[in-house]
């Protein structure tokens, strides 16, 4: 949980403070005086639906079979994320989400910022979580926006102070606003300044958040656990389970079959081959697919065992 370091630089005789760029660290943090601004899919921690008055509303949708080109059993659910919000972090002192669609502060928390692990993945392989990639909160949520009738909002942009503090600029109807949010001393409070008028808002502990739970906690290797692993690591982005074509070979009927490989004799897809394909994906390349394309995943022994069982279950 390394914070963004501050590097004082001398440049053409002007002293200035420049933040470091983002790194592979999936838990980036700003500083109390110098916030970090991040635009990403932030979670909806339980806002009243009426807060999203100026958003569109998605609905469940029939699942699509890429094999038949038609609807299949089941429905796609929706993820509880906010599409176009800005997340700001002042270190442990204050984090908040300000939305560019509603043009208002949506929620605030203290003690941490966002865990981007489900979206950014890890160095060397990425690994976005297929249907669950929204960033997770870290810290104590203490403020949630309430529904409020406003005229049509229009986001204009923001200005940064010398220390990088944003002042959001927007219109509600014809009226233009400038809004700045800052941490203050004290638990569960912050200062909000709108068009020069400052107020201190105080909330109360609403919920606690620890970021993303990285371990799947598999007790013993099963095909069912393997299905979870398959979903969690986003394998389906390349490997279908219904025989349809994709970036990698389909897993349907793969186990037990004889596989043509690039530059070698066909191999039998037994458990050892499946294991090798997961742990050292580039040892052999399935015929017709690009070499060196699949990343090696760092999986626990039980995750690998479960995946093998799951892939084998797709041949039954």
């Amino acid at each position, binding site marked *: 949980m390394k914070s963004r370091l501050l590097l004082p630089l001398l440049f053409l005789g002007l002293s200035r403070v420049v933040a470091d760029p983002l790194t592979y660290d999936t838990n980036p943090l700003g500083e109390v005086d110098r916030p970090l601004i991040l635009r990403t899919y932030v979670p909806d921690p339980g806002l009243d639906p009426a807060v999203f008055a100026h958003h569109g509303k998605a609905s469940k949708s029939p699942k699509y079979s890429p094999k038949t080109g038609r609807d299949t059993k089941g429905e796609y659910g929706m993820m509880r994320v906010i599409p176009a919000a800005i997340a700001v972090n002042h270190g442990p002192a204050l984090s908040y989400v300000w939305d560019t669609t509603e043009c208002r502060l949506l929620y605030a928390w203290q003690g941490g910022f966002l865990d981007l692990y489900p979206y950014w993945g890890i160095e060397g392989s990425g690994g976005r979580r297929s249907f669950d990639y929204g960033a997770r909160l870290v810290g104590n949520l203490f403020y949630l926006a309430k529904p409020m009738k406003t005229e049509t909002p229009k986001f*204009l942009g923001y200005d940064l102070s010398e220390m990088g503090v944003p002042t959001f600029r927007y219109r509600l109807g014809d009226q233009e606003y400038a809004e700045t949010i800052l941490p203050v001393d004290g638990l569960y409070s912050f200062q909000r300044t709108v068009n020069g008028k400052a107020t201190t808002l105080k909330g109360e502990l609403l919920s606690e958040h620890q970021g993303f739970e990285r371990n799947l906690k598999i007790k013993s290797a099963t095909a069912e656990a393997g299905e979870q692993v398959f979903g969690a690591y986003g394998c389906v982005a390349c490997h279908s389970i219904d025989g349809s074509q994709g970036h990698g070979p389909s897993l349907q009927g793969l186990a037990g079959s004889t596989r043509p490989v690039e530059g070698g004799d066909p191999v039998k897809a037994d458990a050892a081959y499946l294991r090798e394909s997961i742990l050292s994906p580039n040892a052999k390349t399935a015929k017709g697919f690009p070499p060196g394309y699949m990343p090696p995943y760092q999986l626990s022994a039980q995750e690998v065992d479960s995946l093998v069982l799951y892939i084998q279950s797709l041949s039954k």
Partner: protein
Amino acid sequence: MKLALFCLLCAGPLSAAPYLVEDIKFPPGVPPEVGAIDFAPDGTLFVVLRRGDVMRATPKKDPGSWTWELFATGFHNGCGIDVISRDQVRVTQMADMTEATDTNGDGTADRYRVFASGWGLSGNYHETNALTEDGKGGYYLAVGTASHNGPTGEYTLGEYSKFGRRGRNFASVKWKGTTLHCDAEGNLTPFCFGFRMHNGIHLDSSGILWCGDNQGDWRATTPLYHLEKGNFYGHPSSLVWDERWPSDKDPLATYREDLDAYNKHRTMPAVQIPHQEMNRSAGEPYEIPAHFPHFPGQMLLPDNNSRRITRIMLEKVNGKFQGACTHFLNEGGLRSGNHRVRFSPDGQQLYVGQTVRGWGREAEGLQRITPTEKAEPFDITSFKITPKGFELTFTRELAGSLTESDLKFKSFTYQSRWTYGSPQENKKDHQVTAVKMTGSKSVEVTLDSLEAGRVYQLDLAKIKSKDGTNIQNVLFYYTANEVPGK
């Protein structure tokens, strides 16, 4: 000159690699996930990284010793950048196009303003956007679709369409899968429809607009499209955002069931590029500038999914663009993930931005490609259709006259449909009925038959030039949408 000399010494003139490929390093620990690149008028190179940072550096000869500065931060998956000046950039991020300006000259942007907005955002991870300048202070924007390998959010930016949500790559919110025009004031209007994922768009020096796309659903293979106002380019989902499409009709189901109507409605690719053999997933097409020593005026198309860049030779036949493709560079130290292209201001070097984040094995970074000699590699530089065959022009004089056995032609067709890519169909082997040298570098080939609507594959023998150089490429594909004189 030193560069060429170095290669001369190490490998000899006959087998020297035509290009030096160098890795441009970012500061340690910075994920080099290059969303887009562009030069400022003063030669500073700007890069928008997908986690949100915009970095800038003055290019240096030594690729490992650039001094990168953080210019701006806080963008969501920016995949298009236009650098107005060393102090101002415009970035297409997921939700909008934002202008970031350094107003006080301290080296970092302090004013962020929405330059253009109005397309939707569903919460899907796949909805990235790219830009090209329109030459009049505005832009053309390629607005990407969502993928069925990820969900939408519960609440969307802009209105939601249930028909747009159907299928593999989808357009559940406004203008996904379309190309927009953005005027100099930031006003958006749909320009054309029907894209799956046109990851990159390019206005060439003649003011002609191009984009590629990714082989997949409704994409038989990797296409290069010539974009014109109002057209439909074949991926149905975005039609829900076309006012001319009936609002009670599911475009995907309609065209799945009626390929004839689909084929009548759609505009074909100018060039169809076999995805396994040439290009699996097109990045940004880019015209080779006049000052680059090799193949000026031809089109490059980076492969986002292999270690190669395609070279496209275009011509106009019966008023429409079509042409041939082969490799510009295949391997040779190139990484995969290729999707953005810019030439250095002097036109002598080519920069390629790479990213595949979350899509297979990581292939992220920035590479620089420099020709090792001024002379073009021995290759076909012009591939033109004639009423009965093709006229090929080589970069160098040939060692001897070509014969029928040096030129093997096959042809096939493609039909895009809902499936993920389509096979090569109606395959035909051709007889070369005549070969006529029309100059020391050019040859006219007559085939037994030539038919509009087919892709012609040339397997060229491993011929030599008069100066003893081996031919660089032996595989070419010509898309004959039109045959002249017919």
